[in-house]
């Protein structure tokens, strides 16, 4: 416990780094998954292709991805970009299926109603389909967030400092408290982000609360 109290500033600094490195892939993953998820939802031929491809992506071990990305993209093996791109790929892999399922969860009768009153295809997607897919997209985003925050710790293996540092350093120096501190910090960050996402969902989707208030 003394290790924790005397290293609070280190834990704090690593936590902020960790949060920054995870937040970007979560947001990018969502942004990329909207068009890929739509592609999987909308057209039967692309459905199998897209969902198969993202399923396959998710099976690539993270260490292999770290080794594959630099020569493909011309970035440094030890760069933060390597970690962020790898995490984004996993986020896209999870989110694409969720976005596709989310769009399929919108009642066909509501979609018909939107067409009947004169929504064009573009506006209908952004103003009817996507908002109504919101609850399922949010569920996917929560899974993605927790998984990304936990997975980000592997960044330390390519020299990117974040909470993963507490694992390798604690292991090398045989400080159990340091490893435990890393675990607790990752869990706390994951829970806080999850809570924020739920809150954001309530703000952005007011129609989902207080059903049957009348």
């Amino acid at each position, binding site marked *: 416990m003394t290790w924790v109290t005397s290293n609070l500033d280190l834990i704090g600094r690593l936590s902020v780094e960790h949060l920054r490195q995870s937040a970007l892939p979560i947001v990018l993953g969502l942004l990329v998954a909207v068009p890929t998820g739509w592609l999987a939802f909308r057209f039967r031929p692309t459905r199998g292709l897209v969902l198969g491809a993202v399923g396959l992506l998710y099976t690539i071990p993270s260490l292999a991805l770290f080794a594959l990305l630099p020569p493909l993209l011309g970035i440094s093996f030890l760069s933060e970009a390597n970690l962020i791109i790898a995490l984004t790929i996993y986020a896209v892999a999870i989110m694409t299926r969720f976005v596709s399922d989310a769009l399929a969860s919108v009642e066909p009768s509501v979609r018909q*109603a939107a*067409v*009947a*009153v004169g929504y064009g295809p573009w506006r209908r997607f952004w103003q009817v389909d996507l908002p109504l897919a919101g609850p399922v997209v949010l569920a996917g985003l929560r899974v993605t967030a927790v998984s990304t925050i936990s997975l980000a710790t592997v960044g330390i293996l390519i020299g990117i400092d974040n909470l993963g540092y507490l694992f390798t350093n604690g292991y090398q120096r045989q400080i159990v408290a340091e490893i435990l501190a890393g675990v607790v910090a990752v869990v706390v960050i994951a829970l806080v982000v999850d809570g924020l996402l739920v809150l954001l969902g309530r703000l952005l989707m007011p129609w989902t609360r207080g059903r049957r208030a*009348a």
Partner: protein
Amino acid sequence: MIEFSSVSKTYPDGTAAVDDFSLVIPPRKTTVLVGSSGCGKTTLLRMINRMVEPTAGTIEIDGESVMDKDPVRLRRGIGYVLQNGGLLPHHTVLDNVTTVLRLERAPRAAARDRAFELLDTVGLDPALAERYPSQLSGGQQQRVGVARALAADPNILLMDEPFGAVDPIVRAELQTETLRLQRELNKTIVFVTHDIDEAFLLGDQVVILSKGADITQIGTPSEIIENPADEFVANFVGIERGTRALHTKRTGSGTVLVDAAGRTQGVLVEDGA
């Protein structure tokens, strides 16, 4: 006036939902398309605003083919009331009513004023304006659906089994409201239902359809009851049973009319008596 000329709709798998259908729908009257499910009545309705496109024939509104118009603009100019109201669950009552006005980028304040005016027209409490559809009863949702259809003041109102999913008491209430609205607003209404009583109550012109949108009989409710075209219509209308099969019964104080179940439905008032 809406005119169907030799309209057919054949799906790629070969099923003919509509086969060589022709009909003139007079302006400022209510025309009811009635038939059992699968007879193609909803398909006909959806052809008017191009949600379904015919494979042959033409549909004209005031002499202009609907196929020559932009479908999205066409739909915004035609009121459409769906079963269960067909409201957008993520929009408040106010936003649902102003949907078409917002799509047409009307000024916000004007749209808002119009929405409150419409809530009043369809008999809804303005306090409901900020509610979401899931917080309303079925009857209230349906009224919002009607208000939304009327928002842009269209000449034509399409109603697709609008009262099919509400309980009988609310349905009767909504039917009366529809009659009142039609007296006040004078729209060209095309109404689809499988309920013959609803058809006779609301329709100036009733079109009885059988499979493939085949017109079995067309006329005013009185014409159809007085002179059913064939056995199918007589059965569908229920001329030989229920509340339409009336016979006279003499009582001490005069002649009354009794239905098939033996219940007295009214008193016979002889002409000149």
